[in-house]
């Protein structure tokens, strides 16, 4: 059963990094989208939301084309930095980030757009800089929506299968996450391993849900 714990650790590591990346990019872009109007905004929004509806294998294929040895980013990374992303856990992080990105982006954008504009206006006339207003007013008031999006995004990243398999493969101890390990165990007819992995995954998912319930601050919950 040692492999199961290795797979769990890897899964949490990949989902954790993917969520961190999405928190920065997703929240940043969501704020930009909620405050600025520009040409092609809704088309760009649709493109950013695409990973939510596209089959993960198709996304994985796109990533292979772009990040692979022949891909323009893959070539660039290899030539200038000596980095290979295909068949590494870092590659799996990128796949998981892209697949789970829309959940945090959509959640954060809705949270920012539902804020009453007068709180930010009140802060502006109090002679506080726009950056400070973002961290002291906007973010604390939109926090619940962003947190909900982040947890969904984490859960989605942890359960990622298709794109991860395409990009990172299934190398035990290196890129084999829980969901991939379940598939491999079933394919190999190892029912015991499969049972244990499935149970472990269910416990992890349940824990995420319970933690998310506890993280919601009671005081803010009452205001909502």
């Amino acid at each position, binding site marked *: 059963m040692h492999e199961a714990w290795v797979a769990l650790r890897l899964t949490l590591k990949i989902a954790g990094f993917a969520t961190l990346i999405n928190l920065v990019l997703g929240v940043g872009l969501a704020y930009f989208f909620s405050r600025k109007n520009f040409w092609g905004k809704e088309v760009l929004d649709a493109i950013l939301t695409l990973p939510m509806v596209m089959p993960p294998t198709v996304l994985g294929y796109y990533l292979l084309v772009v990040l692979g040895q022949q891909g323009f980013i893959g070539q660039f990374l290899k030539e200038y930095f000596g980095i290979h992303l295909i068949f590494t856990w870092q590659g799996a992080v990128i796949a998981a980030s892209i697949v789970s990105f829309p959940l945090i982006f959509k959640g954060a954008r809705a949270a920012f757009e539902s804020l009453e504009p007068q*709180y930010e206006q009140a802060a502006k006339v109090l002679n*506080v*800089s726009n950056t400070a207003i973002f961290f002291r007013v906007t973010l604390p008031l939109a926090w619940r929506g962003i947190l909900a999006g982040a947890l969904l995004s984490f859960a989605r990243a942890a359960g990622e299968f298709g794109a991860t398999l395409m990009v990172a493969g299934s190398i035990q101890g290196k890129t084999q996450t829980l969901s991939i390990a379940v598939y491999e165990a079933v394919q190999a007819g190892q029912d015991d391993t499969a049972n244990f992995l499935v149970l472990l995954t269910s416990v992890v998912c349940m824990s995420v849900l319970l933690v998310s319930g506890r993280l919601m601050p009671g005081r803010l919950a009452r205001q909502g």
Partner: protein
Amino acid sequence: MSMLWQVQIKKHYQNELHPFDLGVQIQSAAKNLVIFGSSGAGKTQVLKMLAGLVKPDSGFIRMGDETLFDSDLNINKSPQQRSLAYVFQDYALFPHLTVRQNIAFSANKTWLNKGKQFTNEDVDDWMVKFQLTHLANQYPHQLSGGQSQRVALARALVSKPKGLLLDEPFAALDQELRRTLRQELHALLKQLSIPMILISHDQEDVNLFGEEVISIKNGKTI
């Protein structure tokens, strides 16, 4: 006498059912000015334009010698640069911060909110003056209408504004309280040396506060 406010602003609001044209002119030397008009006349929009929260299509806004906005000269100072305190109709107290954190908001120039104990001399002074000290650790949703109004005013005054803009300060209160608070606010404002503009649809406000009154109807000064 030199003019305190020189304002000439225009803005067109595109709305398929009710397109609205705002065109307002103000020339006033009064320290206490009331802009009077029924609801929907465009008063709040005018006040937001003065504060820099809404940008007029064209015209100019001058306060004393300072040009805050001028479409010909391409000047449009940010709300921060104008430093005109604006008290919102429903006060817009930050719901995630305590009374003291709200009042001390502008005293903290960093990117993160300070703890509940953060204060300075000004903050303490205004809290004493407005009888808010015992409410320091309460949250806005625990306050009455009158208390909220005093917090909003104290928060505005701590930022040491060059002027005070009040948007229907009594509209959110019931009749009885309105009368008491009107007197209270009048007494408080008399101690201040900064100019004030108050907008209202209530004749009583005009009688008490207005050194000078400007009436607005359907977006136009009359």
